[in-house]
């Protein structure tokens, strides 16, 4: 299927308005779930093709690059697309039940439409090879995210969404400025073409400014410390399924975008040699890892705690990519995938809790270990993965990260990674203690329905499976890293 590359974006895009028009609750959900599974299948096929071919290109409308918009899929993009496919395919079935409770009946169609738009936007960012096209899809996904977050039950979801809107649009506009300046200097928007033309003009102040705007804009989307202020509330107050989806995908796609800009467009020599981006990114990553983990320990709400944990984990990824080595980039990409699995499972487990309890305050979790055994077991499993216990995916990515840091002799980084893992033990174990060892079992609280437990446990089991059999994840990450660093023109 030669159009598969573009269909993977177009199908959810077209299905979205259809969802909005369909009546009731079941039908839009069925359509959205079917589309997400089609996307999963398509992204898996594409990933297999990329394994063989290396890079897949597709010209939109038949117009040749660099004048036309080109869709370009290499190992890194295929990896992230597969990730989005997996997460969407798991979260949408979950949403069927949780959204029935959390979203008003007249908004169900719109809800699923927005979910599909979000997925389409994220897929578009990964699929495209044109810098401005990225902006368009970035805004598509962001706008749907603002909308989805605002649908949360708590009224604080509204202020969270508004703050995210302001900061997110600021970030996207910075990105736009950066792209505009680069276009002014090189005359092209195609990322591969930019990579070729930039070295000639790289020493100008314009390009330096452009890079600054680009990186800051993307870092706002990544929620890199200290640009993370929008994230905790956004993740905490969004509807459960939305929280799980964005926690597992949005920041990951933004990290992918940063990798794409820094490694493909700017090139390793320019970015890390001339601009010395390493030190800045490293410092911010380490600060983020430590402070966010520390703040997470005292959060009264479990989802807010997980949100701060996400800020710390993003620090790990940025740490890996700022090492400018194949090992570091492999670790970053690996952690990108693994963290999506971990956080997805944790947020889904919290979604099960919210379904029964109406909220996720840590103090309300007392005694849930007995009342909701499967749900809390899923949380414990995800927590173990977050800590980095062996046989889970968390351990694998931490191993690679520490190895990459040691390769460059950067001892303080190892200490920072270890310290934030220990902090992770603190905030995960707080919940475990309260759920299992404090308070009597709650009567009146039943276990979550299997329609919610099944998707949760799929992700949990993936955590363990991919923690033992790492050929797929490590293989893709290594291939992607080698392609990104080796292929810099």
């Amino acid at each position, binding site marked *: 299927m030669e159009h598969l590359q573009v269909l993977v974006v177009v199908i959810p895009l077209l299905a979205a308005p259809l969802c909005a028009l369909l009546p009731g609750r079941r039908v839009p959900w069925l359509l959205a779930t079917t589309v997400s599974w089609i996307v999963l299948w398509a992204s898996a096929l594409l990933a297999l093709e990329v394994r063989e071919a290396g890079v897949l290109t597709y010209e939109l409308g038949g117009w040749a690059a660099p004048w036309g918009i080109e869709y370009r899929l290499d190992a890194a993009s295929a990896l992230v697309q597969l990730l989005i496919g997996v997460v969407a395919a798991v979260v949408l079935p979950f949403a069927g039940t949780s959204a029935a409770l959390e979203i008003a009946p007249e908004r169900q169609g719109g809800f699923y439409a927005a979910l599909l738009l979000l997925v389409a936007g994220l897929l578009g960012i990964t699929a495209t090879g044109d810098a401005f096209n990225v902006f368009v899809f970035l805004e598509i996904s962001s706008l749907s995210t603002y909308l989805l977050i605002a649908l949360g039950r708590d009224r604080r979801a509204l202020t969270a969404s508004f703050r995210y809107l302001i900061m997110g649009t600021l970030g996207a506009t910075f990105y736009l400025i950066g792209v505009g300046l680069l276009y002014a200097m090189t005359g092209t928007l195609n990322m591969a073409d930019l990579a070729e033309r930039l070295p000639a003009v790289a020493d100008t102040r314009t390009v330096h400014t452009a890079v600054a705007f680009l990186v800051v804009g993307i870092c706002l989307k990544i929620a890199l410390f200290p640009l993370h202020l929008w994230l905790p509330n956004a993740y905490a107050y969004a509807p459960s399924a939305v929280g799980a989806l964005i926690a597992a995908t949005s920041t990951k796609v933004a990290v992918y975008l940063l990798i794409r800009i820094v490694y493909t467009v700017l090139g390793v020599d320019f970015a890390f040699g001339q601009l010395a981006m390493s030190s800045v990114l490293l410092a911010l990553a380490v600060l983020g890892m430590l402070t966010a983990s520390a703040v997470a320990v005292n959060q009264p709400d479990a989802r807010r705690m997980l949100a701060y944990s996400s800020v710390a984990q993003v620090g790990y990824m940025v740490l890996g990519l700022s090492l400018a080595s194949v090992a570091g980039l492999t670790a970053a990409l690996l952690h990108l995938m693994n963290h999506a699995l971990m956080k997805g499972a944790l947020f889904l487990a919290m979604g099960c809790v919210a379904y029964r309890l109406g909220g996720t305050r840590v103090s309300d979790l007392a005694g849930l270990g007995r009342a909701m055994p499967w749900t809390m077991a899923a949380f414990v499993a995800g927590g*173990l993965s977050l*800590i*980095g*216990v*062996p*046989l889970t995916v968390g*351990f*694998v990515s931490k*191993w*690679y990260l*520490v*190895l990459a840091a*040691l*390769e460059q002799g950067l001892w303080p980084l*190892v200490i920072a990674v*270890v*310290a934030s*893992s*220990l902090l992770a*033990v603190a905030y995960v*174990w707080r919940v475990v*203690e309260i759920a*299992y*060892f*404090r308070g009597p079992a709650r009567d009146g609280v039943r276990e979550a329905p299997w329609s919610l437990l099944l998707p949760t446990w799929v992700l949990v089991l993936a955590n363990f499976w991919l*923690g*033992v*059999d*790492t*050929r797929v994840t*490590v293989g893709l990450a290594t291939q992607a890293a080698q392609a990104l660093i080796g292929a810099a023109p």
Partner: protein
Amino acid sequence: MSTATALQLCLLVPLLGAAGIVAARRRPNLRESITLLTAATLLGCVLAVLAGFLHGDVPTVLLAEPVPGLPISLRPEPLGVLFALLASGLWLVTSVYSIGYMRAKRESHQTRFYLCFAIALFGVMGVAFAANLLTLFVFYEVLTLSTYPLVAHAGTPEAVRGARTYLGILLATSIGLFLPAIIWTYSLAGTLEFTPGGVLEGRVGDAGAALLLGLFVLGIGKAAVMPVHRWLPAAMVAPTPVSALLHAVAVVKAGVFTITKVVIYIFGLDFLAGVPAERLLVYLAGFTVIAASVVALRQDNLKRLLAYSTVGQLSYVVIAAMVLTPLAEIGAALHMVAHGLAKITLFFTAGAIYVASGKTRVSELDGIGRRMPWTMAAFAVGALSMVGVPPTAGFVSKWYIIAGSFQNDLYFVLVVLTLSTGLNAAYFLPLIHRAFFRSETVAPKYDHGEAPWPMVAALVLTAALTVAFFVFNGPVVDLEKSIVGKS
């Protein structure tokens, strides 16, 4: 059955037992029978591995490969086989004891108790038979996590707090120090396989080697070298069967076992002998021995006294491992067994006293020897073994450690051993004296005799084994000779 199959069964049997225990949770008698059957089967499998090993059959069984080039695999070797034998044999005995204890105290959450025990033994088997450091680390963590619910079993605020200290220290040391040490070793040597003669020769300088060794010794928190020893007294909030098997045998022995394996198979005796700063760790272990004994002197709570005694005794093994002479290494292995047998007897006794009379303090134990002669006789045997008096097991291992120190002219070790023997005598012998030769001063809650018979049977058996080891230690010594023969 082939040794390879037996190896895999050693891991599989406890897991199947765990599943069976959960399935039988509503039928206590069936559930307990499953535990006993599993323990007996496991012992059989370990014996099969031993038999195969003695015939020269040393297979490597690959389980998984999470990181390319770093397999999770099993391979029997003398130390590991010994450890597995000790743990599985004592699991059977402890299960009998636990049944008596849990039923007498009408404890709640019994299914969780037996389930976590089975999973912990799964972890122990993995640690014992690990072929490389990564495998050992994986099962080491399994052991930590599976014993947490056992420590917090009572569910009271003190139990939860104690369990938090337990988990906190063990995870902090393993993630903060042990894991970085493993990764550093991997980046230096390119492999984590346990190899006779070690893998670090020529790969790292003296300062680096000393630092790495320090990371290992402190990172392997289960060996309770000061200052990472606090988890042991904190874990005494656990029910006594837990303290007996896990904190006298399985968990702590996993710690010193790991240190010994790291010293022999990762560093290599000859390489370490050339690292002068290694002496510092000998001093640290020696300090632990003395300090722990001094603290034990001042304990009134019987279990805490035994806990601090354990801390000291574990550092005997660490010292013996670090003395780096063949005789001392054999002494380390022997002391693992000797201390295990004697300490489990002592803990069994403490539990029996608690169940029968409700007493937990040393000061309350006057005259209890009249009421519980079998129990206190076993206690006396265990205590004498701690001190190192013949005809108990403790004497044999101390002999080898002292001989090994002579080989290396490490007089510091001799001083430490002598001093600690005196201290051990100072807190154990008066206890025996007051139990038998004083009349009762603190009335028990109710008139009582011996504890329930399963408990007494168990502790008499382990006491007998302690004496038997004094006589029949030949085969064990021969088995362990091979670890130093090749290095």
